[in-house]
């Protein structure tokens, strides 16, 4: 595995202008993605994980979205400065995306084959006949039985899991550098989830595609990610290698998240399932200081005054005042 950085997000700010005020959905997010790496982004709903990734392909409608700062460097070129045709050349070709709800993400009025052909004809310049052949091949690759027949069918004739397979076939059809998977299994049956994740892992490994996996399922992250970024209220609070963070979470929010995972090794009734007290703050009206401080068990006086800087500790970045050398003294 070459350790070349192919995507670098620096200080990304994506805000939304709404009637209630400026929503800072993503506010100063930075991470890097290396060749062949799988990065997990976890957080509660509304923490900005989807917005971050929709920003990477500039898929958010503007207005109301504004990319008010930062850079998204794909192989050194800033996506935020690209014009429409440069963007289109990247979308679905170099960076592709699969979405949460496979039931609505495919066009219900188009045959599956045409939806896959489109990308191949557009980005690889294949004539329609060849693209159709390739589409059947791709469907076979993602494990769709009877691909020649299924290609001629419409999305409503596919189950949820099968549709997500189609989405994967479509997304990987041009052998992209990066696959962004936005909660690809959330809408699926538990029994199907593992199959889909395995499929993503196998195919991307085969193609050498890097993956950004957005999820709120920590088990998924532990299973297939190299690095993980934990997001809270539009910012990354902890970011580093998966084993490190799962073994020794440093940020109180990460600790809380890990403690809220149900455990199968406990007897029923033995220990209540932990939940982080309180609710995430409103993105229009963020608290002073650290955004997590109102829910934090370890909050110090400084936490309610200033947002913590990122500390490099134990091989990761963590934005928490507790890591400050003088934290003991408050």
């Amino acid at each position, binding site marked *: 595995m070459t350790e070349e950085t192919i995507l670098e997000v620096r200080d990304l700010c994506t805000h939304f202008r709404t009637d209630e005020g400026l929503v800072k959905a993503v506010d100063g997010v930075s991470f890097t993605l290396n060749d062949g790496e799988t990065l997990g982004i976890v957080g509660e709903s509304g923490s900005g994980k989807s917005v971050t990734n929709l920003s990477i*392909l500039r898929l958010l409608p503007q207005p109301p979205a504004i990319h008010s700062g930062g850079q998204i460097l794909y192989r050194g070129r800033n996506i935020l400065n690209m014009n429409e045709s440069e963007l289109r050349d990247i*979308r679905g070709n170099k960076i*592709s995306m699969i979405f949460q709800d496979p039931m609505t*993400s495919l*066009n219900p009025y188009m045959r599956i084959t045409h939806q896959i052909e489109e990308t191949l004809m557009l980005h690889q310049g294949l004539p329609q006949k060849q693209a159709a052949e390739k589409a059947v091949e791709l469907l076979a690759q993602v494990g769709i039985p009877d691909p020649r027949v299924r290609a001629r069918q419409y999305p409503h004739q596919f189950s949820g899991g099968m549709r997500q397979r189609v989405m994967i076939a479509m997304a990987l059809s041009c052998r992209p550098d990066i696959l962004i998977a936005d909660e690809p299994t959330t809408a699926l049956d538990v029994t199907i989830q593992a199959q889909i994740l395995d499929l993503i892992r196998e195919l991307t490994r085969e193609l050498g595609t890097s993956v950004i996996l957005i999820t709120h399922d920590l088990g998924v992250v532990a299973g297939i990610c190299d690095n993980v970024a934990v997001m809270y209220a539009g910012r990354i609070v902890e970011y580093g290698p998966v084993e490190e963070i799962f073994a020794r979470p440093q940020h109180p929010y990460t600790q809380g998240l890990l403690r809220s995972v149900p455990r199968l090794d406990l007897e029923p009734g033995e220990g209540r399932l932990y939940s982080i007290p309180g609710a995430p703050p409103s993105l229009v009206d963020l608290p002073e200081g650290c955004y997590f401080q109102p829910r934090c068990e370890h909050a110090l006086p400084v936490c309610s005054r200033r947002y913590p800087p990122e500390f490099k500790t134990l091989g990761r970045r963590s934005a928490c005042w507790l890591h400050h050398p003088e934290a003991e003294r408050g």
Partner: protein
Amino acid sequence: MIRCNVLAYVLRRIVGMVPTLFIIVTLSFFIIRLAPGSPFSSERNLPPSVIANLEKKVHLDEPLPLQYLRYLGDVLRGDLGYSTKHVDFTINEFIARALPVSMTLGALALVLALSVGITVGVVSALKRNSLMDHSLMALAILGISVPMFVIGPLLQLLFSVHLGWLPTAGWLSSRAGGLTLILPVLTLAVTDFAYIARLTRTSVLEVLRSDYIRTARAKGLSQRAIIWKHTLRGAMLPVVSFLGPAFANIVTGSVVVESIFDIPGMGRFFVNSALNRDYFMIMATVIVYAVILVIANLIADLVYAALDPRVVYE
């Protein structure tokens, strides 16, 4: 296989029309008879003996149930009877002359309303909240709110009286020719145009917000491909559903428009026959309109099914 299903479906729908039409015929037959007056009670007072003779000739002297059965029998044989006002022609002959006129007028108006309405709706949706969008939608609101009997005379006033460009009234008269078509078709199309434009705008906007359009963008498709290949088909479905009501608008509108522009179509006969208590003429127009509307709805359903692969014929 699929084609076979469609054929079976159409046949079933046609069979299904029979009870609908039967109910319409029955209800109209008795409702008309409930209205006060009779075909021969005109301002000119006829001697009672003459009236009795006339009534005998068209069997109005028989008991009502018998008349009803007799009429049903005639209709099933395709004989719509005689007008009590214009005895020189059979009603079948009247319809043979008037129906093509109304059909031409209605078809032209519907085609105009659809083509302009859809175009305006799509443009409005793509230029959402622009000056263009706001003005087009204001025009549509105007089209919905102002009735045809106001729009028609206003158009006549402007284009015929003041500007003198177009004839005021008439139908394909040798002197003005096709020009006579313009104002009535325009007037008749306005309401449907307005509804279709608004419907299209809403529906295009809704589709543009959908997940599968986001997928299309994520694939790198151009705006043009997204609109033509991914948006329009789905966005047309509500418009197709509206075809039935749109046709009904055209039919009721033609009654007004044909009167305003003095067009010898079904609509004018409908009004006149109702005023004259011309029993069989009223029945005939009701039956023709009912058949047209039922067929229009069937066509709308077939188009919908052709556009949406999820529809199953059952």
